[in-house]
């Protein structure tokens, strides 16, 4: 008697795999509890908080002046943006004026920081896809140049503490601007290099096309923002939608995903964003006015008026918000961060279910999550 081998009478058991908190592909300390059927993911539960350093608690227990130095660590790849969000919120409450030169400098360093953040993302994304040697070394080459430039104005490679309430802390030398200009001139060629290796690579195409399709409605429901949202074709960039700083004066386009919102679109979106940021840096350099750079005196007992303010800016990962409640003392009464990674990560389970293990890395990498940004 021949038994038919069909999928119905082939019994398979589910296997629970614990991925993380120490795993090469989870970018630090995310823990995913996966339920697998063979190689197919049936259930995902992200466990976060392994890097919960109590940033908000620190915010209400330290003076504003002290806390300014701490917030670069919220999102260590784009410290300028976290500083900027905090400064914006405090300026909203305080109503202090930011000099135009400081505004331009802020936009300049932020766009530089966006490039450096995306470059690191590109390297780690390729590592996630399995290119452990060779290619990931190239983005780091450009990133080192940017970090050297940051070091010259801020004194640190990654933790800048450069953007302060009321302006920026240091006026760069004229030679620094020349170096930045030199960088902007050669950077498009470098992106061409990356694209020549990655964009047309058949294995990369196979692994990213039609993988992890993020539907528009799902993205809206989960509050996804940033390149992950724009990859799905939603034209939502705070620099255009709710312009802050000097962005209304600058001329740029928002790159959008071309077709479905898959991993490939999110990759392409970030590549285009780097080119666009490069153009923005050039514009900032051209329009840079002379004058003051700091509208508020930076002293240890720095105070802002009482009140509450919410500011949001477009960080490399999405909408970075900072909600500050002040009671007029030198400490904030409550600080709440709205982190893009935290909100974008919430959508991960719905993208992963039904995909094989290998896609976890591609999808997770393409969302571009920074764990301290999730855990604070």
């Amino acid at each position, binding site marked *: 008697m021949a038994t038919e081998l069909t999928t119905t009478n082939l019994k398979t058991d589910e296997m629970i795999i614990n991925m993380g908190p120490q795993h090469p592909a989870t970018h630090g300390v995310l823990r995913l509890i996966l339920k697998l059927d063979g190689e197919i993911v049936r259930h995902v539960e992200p466990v*976060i*908080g392994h890097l*919960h350093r*109590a940033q*908000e*608690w620190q915010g*209400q*227990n*330290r003076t504003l002046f*002290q806390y300014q130095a701490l917030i670069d660590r919220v999102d260590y790849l784009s410290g300028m943006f976290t500083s900027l969000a905090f400064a914006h919120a405090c300026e*909203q*409450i305080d109503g202090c004026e930011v000099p135009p030169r400081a505004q331009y400098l802020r936009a300049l360093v932020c766009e530089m920081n966006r490039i450096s953040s995306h470059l690191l993302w590109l390297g780690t994304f390729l590592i996630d896809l399995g290119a452990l040697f060779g290619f990931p070394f190239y983005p780091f080459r450009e990133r080192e140049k940017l970090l050297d430039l940051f070091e010259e104005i801020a004194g640190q490679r990654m933790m800048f503490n450069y953007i302060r309430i009321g302006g920026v802390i240091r006026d760069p030398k004229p030679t620094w601007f020349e170096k930045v200009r030199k960088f902007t001139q050669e950077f498009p060629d470098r992106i061409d290099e990356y694209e020549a290796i990655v964009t047309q690579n058949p294995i990369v195409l196979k692994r990213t096309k039609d993988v992890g399709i993020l539907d528009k409605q799902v993205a*809206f*429901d*989960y*509050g996804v*923002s940033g390149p992950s949202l724009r990859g799905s074709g*939603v034209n*939502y960039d705070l620099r255009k*939608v*709710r312009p802050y700083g000097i962005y209304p004066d600058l001329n740029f386009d928002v790159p959008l995903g071309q077709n479905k919102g898959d991993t490939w679109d999110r990759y392409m979106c970030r590549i285009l964003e780097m080119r666009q940021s490069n153009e923005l840096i050039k514009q900032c350099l051209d329009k840079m006015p002379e004058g003051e750079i700091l509208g508020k005196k930076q002293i240890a007992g720095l105070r802002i008026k*009482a*009140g*509450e*303010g*919410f*500011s*949001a800016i477009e960080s490399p990962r999405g*909408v970075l*918000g900072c*909600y500050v*409640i*002040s*009671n*007029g*003392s030198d*400490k904030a*009464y*409550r600080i*709440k961060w*709205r982190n893009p990674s*935290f*909100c974008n990560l*919430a959508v991960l389970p719905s993208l992963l279910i039904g995909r094989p293990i290998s896609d976890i890395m591609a999808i997770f990498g393409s969302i571009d999550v920074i764990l301290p940004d999730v*855990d*604070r």
Partner: protein
Amino acid sequence: MTEKPAEKTEVKLEIGRFGKFLQDNGIKSKRQSDSNNVETIVIDAKDLEPAMRLLKTSSETTLNFLLCVSGVDYADKIDSVYHLWSYEHNDALVIKVELPKNNMTNTQTPCMSSISNFWPAANWHERETYDLVGIRYLKHPYLRRILNPWDWEGHPLRRDYKQLIDALNDKNPHSFR
């Protein structure tokens, strides 16, 4: 902590655009002083769910971008603050739900209804607010601590939180404060 909460102006404010919209649909709201020209309203805890449903789906408002849910611990009350934006328009709204404390201790939690059943974005935010500030969101699908370990005691962002001193952090507990 001896610090006083944010100043409260008892000036009667005019009803705003969204407040009027809610009033038309039978939901009472109280206008608070604006921050940075964003309308701020206070509504009752029981009205929150219908109000959110309306604001999210109604074609008049479409505030479909929930930025964050934050809990704020004041001396006499705990606020649950919702920042709403729209993906399509330039609208913004801040909704506050005030939960009175009534001599509540650190371990007790005020309760209100959850919105994460129809709005997945609120899911993790509510878990985080429960974890740090201690607002219990009823009918939440999975209300467990998210940032701290699951058996953590107390809610760290409460003003009366006393942190655990043990072998892992007995070195200068008040060093930089």
